[in-house]
């Protein structure tokens, strides 16, 4: 037994941790630091901004997997509200107000205070305390890293709540050790062998951490058998997402009940084992002279907590890793939990760390908390995910002298930087050139065996996702060096043809128009000064991004803000569609830097992979494009006729551009088919044929579209004399 305790197998360690977290989510099998980091990186997803309120959260949580949660701000009390889906059968959603007291935050029904929301949430994913169940976190969260290229599209609440959504492919490689669980940061301490304990920084601040040494007396627990069998069974049940709601509901009743049901008759639910070690709450209720009592005296009732309120989880005695020479020196800046810097540097192969920890001799816990921080960097070594590896590899390839990819990339950058917008070469043409180069470079990467070995490890990632990842990676090496130059080119070109001047002039004409004058619906609000300020900041951030995908993401955030402003004072139940949104967007644009926005819009429109234009991002990008187009083509009544012809001309150009892109896409589709073959998988011959034939058809359609627009232009010119009919149809586009 002792041996097992000391040197758990890797899987034993993994299962023992999950086995103890009886009512936690499977995500807790992962590294808590990864969880903390993941939650921090996707905070927007679970703690969405202002458009979300209690009502919205309830609607979104309704019927979700139990434990699903959102934190939204409560408009009535100014406090945050933790909304948790309790039971997906009865569709119950419960609110738990989060109270701010000084520098601490706590649930109003609990006495456990945390220094920030993130820590509070992490705590409640691991322990339920006053909640009916632990918060559940989608498993992909643990895989998020700062460098995760996919963060360009930070997941929103919708992805967050979707139980099946996997915005990121599995990022923890199968061999990722769990042993770096031994980490210590501001809120948590986790021993290598599975004891997990939370230390509130507020407490440390006041009382230091000497009391941690008290752990050494906690030997009672060693007698508890480590039962790998039981633990494995538990973990299997947990790892199986469809384990059944009934089982889950049981565990919600009482955490100790699930111990019982999971085959550990030794456990008595009525008298939970009381460890004497690093257990804040237990200790405080057992001895009034205990130093721990001091912290908790005011916050914890003297009555022993009911079993399901345990705020700690422990299976084995506190067993810190040795501060071996291999550990990094203490780094206090980790307090901020900004792990990116470390991750940037560490490139530890996952297999390196477990042996280290296993071999470390047991030492009494005597060091300051800060020393434990060193373990964090180790833990992070294992977090290197496939995307990151891909990004790193592409970066390497781009720097490798003489490699074909590096040469092609260099050629592209040089060529692009040389190209200047002139009267002959429009910005659109330049951007199209860039787009086709991007596609060609992407193909090159796909063809490289180095990259294939990484993409193969991605597992069953759909092609379009793979494309997205590859695009992101490519943007970093290819677009980053040229983006500023491209902005200049777009600007020059648009100045030369006068469209920017036109846009600005019309902005001046229209900027004082109210929403009603822009034909906005009465009842829809416009952003107030503060929101407008926020939007301006977002636009500025958007301009700074070199990746068109990241730009679209920020655009979506702005649109969300606009929607929020529209609905905030509206009557409940009113639905705002495009009739309301487009005028409101126009109203916002008239108060923004339209020149920069036009440049960014062109940039996104031309450089985004066309396959990404179908969804929500495509819709709102189209709206932005349309709205800017509306402003720049606004004319007084006299010039109306000319407008529509110009409008159509511009549209036809737009169609043509899409045509070009689609032909490129066609090539990449074919590539994919090849890739499949290469990876030795059977590809149904039929589907291959269909792929090829649809591509041809697709090409056909685009050509048709362009023809169509030309035809349309002709018909417009023909009918331009017939002003009467035009007016009857109310076709004239003007404001008066």
């Amino acid at each position, binding site marked *: 037994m002792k041996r097992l305790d000391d040197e758990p197998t890797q899987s034993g360690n993994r299962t023992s941790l999950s086995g103890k977290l009886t009512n936690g989510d499977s995500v807790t099998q992962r590294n808590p630091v990864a969880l903390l980091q993941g939650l921090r990186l996707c905070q927007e997803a679970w703690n969405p901004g202002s458009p979300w309120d209690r009502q919205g959260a309830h609607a979104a949580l309704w019927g979700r997997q139990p434990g699903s949660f959102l934190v939204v701000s409560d408009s009535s009390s100014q406090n945050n509200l933790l909304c948790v889906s309790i039971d997906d059968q009865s569709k119950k959603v419960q609110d738990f107000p989060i109270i701010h007291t000084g520098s601490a935050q706590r649930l109003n029904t609990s006495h456990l205070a945390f220094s920030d929301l993130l820590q509070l949430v992490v705590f409640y994913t691991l322990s339920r305390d006053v909640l009916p169940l632990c918060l559940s976190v989608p498993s992909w969260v643990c895989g998020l890293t700062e460098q995760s290229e996919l963060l360009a599209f930070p997941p929103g*609440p919708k992805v967050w709540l979707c139980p099946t959504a996997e915005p990121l492919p599995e990022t923890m490689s199968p061999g990722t050790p769990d042993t770096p669980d031994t980490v210590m940061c501001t809120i948590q301490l986790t021993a290598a062998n599975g004891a997990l304990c939370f230390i509130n920084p507020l407490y440390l601040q006041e009382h230091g951490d000497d009391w941690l040494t008290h752990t050494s007396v906690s030997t009672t627990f060693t007698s508890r058998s480590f039962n790998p069998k039981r633990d494995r069974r538990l973990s299997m049940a947990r790892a199986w997402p469809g384990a059944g709601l009934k089982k889950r509901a049981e565990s919600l009743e009482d955490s100790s009940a699930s111990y019982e049901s999971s085959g550990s008759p030794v456990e008595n639910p009525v008298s939970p084992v009381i460890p004497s070690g690093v257990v804040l709450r237990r200790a405080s209720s057992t001895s009034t002279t205990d130093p721990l009592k001091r912290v908790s005296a005011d916050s914890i009732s003297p009555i022993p907590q009911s079993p399901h309120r345990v705020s700690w989880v422990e299976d084995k005695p506190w067993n810190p890793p040795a501060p071996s020479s291999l550990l990094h020196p203490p780094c206090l800046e980790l307090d901020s939990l900004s792990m990116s810097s470390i991750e940037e540097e560490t490139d530890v192969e996952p297999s390196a760390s477990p042996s280290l920890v296993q071999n470390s001799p047991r030492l009494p816990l005597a060091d300051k908390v800060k020393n434990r921080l060193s373990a964090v960097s180790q833990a992070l070594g294992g977090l290197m995910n496939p995307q990151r590896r891909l990004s790193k590899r592409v970066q390497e390839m781009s720097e490798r002298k003489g490699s074909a990819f590096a040469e092609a990339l260099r050629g592209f950058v040089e060529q692009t930087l040389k190209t200047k917008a002139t009267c002959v070469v429009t910005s659109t043409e330049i951007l199209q050139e860039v787009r086709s180069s991007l596609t060609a470079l992407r193909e090159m990467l796909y063809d490289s065996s180095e990259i294939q070995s990484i993409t193969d490890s991605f597992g069953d990632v759909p092609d379009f996702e793979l494309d997205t990842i590859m695009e992101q990676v490519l943007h970093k090496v290819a677009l980053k060096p040229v983006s500023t130059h491209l902005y200049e080119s777009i600007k020059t070109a648009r100045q030369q043809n006068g469209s920017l001047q036109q846009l600005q002039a019309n902005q001046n004409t229209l900027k004082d128009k109210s929403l009603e004058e822009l034909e906005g619906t009465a009842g829809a609000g416009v952003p107030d000064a503060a929101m407008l300020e926020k939007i301006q900041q977002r636009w500025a951030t958007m301009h700074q991004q070199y990746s068109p995908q990241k730009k679209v993401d920020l655009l979506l955030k702005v649109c969300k803000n606009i929607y929020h402003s529209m609905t905030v004072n509206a009557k409940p139940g009113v639905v705002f569609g495009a009739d309301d949104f487009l005028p409101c967007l126009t109203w916002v644009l008239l108060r923004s830097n339209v020149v920069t926005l036009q440049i960014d819009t062109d940039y996104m429109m031309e450089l985004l992979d066309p396959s990404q234009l179908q969804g929500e991002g495509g819709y709102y990008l189209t709206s932005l494009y349309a709205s800017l187009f509306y402003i720049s083509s606004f004319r007084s009544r006299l010039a109306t006729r000319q407008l529509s012809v110009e409008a159509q001309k511009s549209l036809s150009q737009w169609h043509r551009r899409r045509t070009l892109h689609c032909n490129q896409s066609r090539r990449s589709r074919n590539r994919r088919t090849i890739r499949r073959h290469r990876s030795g998988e059977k590809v149904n011959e039929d589907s291959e044929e269909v792929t090829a034939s649809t591509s041809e058809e*697709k090409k056909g359609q685009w050509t048709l579209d362009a023809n169509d627009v030309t035809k349309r232009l002709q018909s417009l010119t023909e009918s331009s004399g017939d002003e009467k009919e035009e007016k009857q149809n109310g076709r004239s586009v003007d404001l008066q």
Partner: protein
Amino acid sequence: MSLRELKVCLLGDTGVGKSSIVCRFVEDNFDPNINPTIGASFMTKTVQYQNEHHKFLIWDTAGQERFRALAPMYYRGSAAAIIVYDITKEESFLTLKNWVKELHQHGPPNIVVAIAGNKCDLTDSREVPEKDAKDYADSIHAIFVETSAKNAININEIFTEISQKIPLLVTSDSGLKGLKLRRDQSDLTRERACC
């Protein structure tokens, strides 16, 4: 089961209830697997049709006259268009006819057209007789239903009929290739998964 993404564009005068119809459609059988979108201008819903999943990507357009020139940006690439009019406003029915004309001339070829006479709960103030609208719809081979977003009448039916009218993949013609491509992708993925 394969997934097809179908872009559906909503056209019609402002105030006829375009977005209400979509909201009703999307929210009625609330599916926790469908993620809420930012707003009602763009919504999605996946329904099962025979052995396929149809994911409707619903693009709303601004119905105001002055934004009319912008519509082509929205309806390009659509597999279907739902043109909505208000049965209590004859004018909105005239606008509808213009949209039909425009789509036939400039819309994607073989786009499935559905006509929805909304607010059919307000029979007292009806201005457009159902028969007139039905006859017109038949003459252009369009789907026709009278709907009430308010009372949830015939909302799902429009989309079901669209699903039915979308050409099957094998025999489909040039109207749907973008969507077909996606389907092929998911097919491939599926096959890979089981091999």
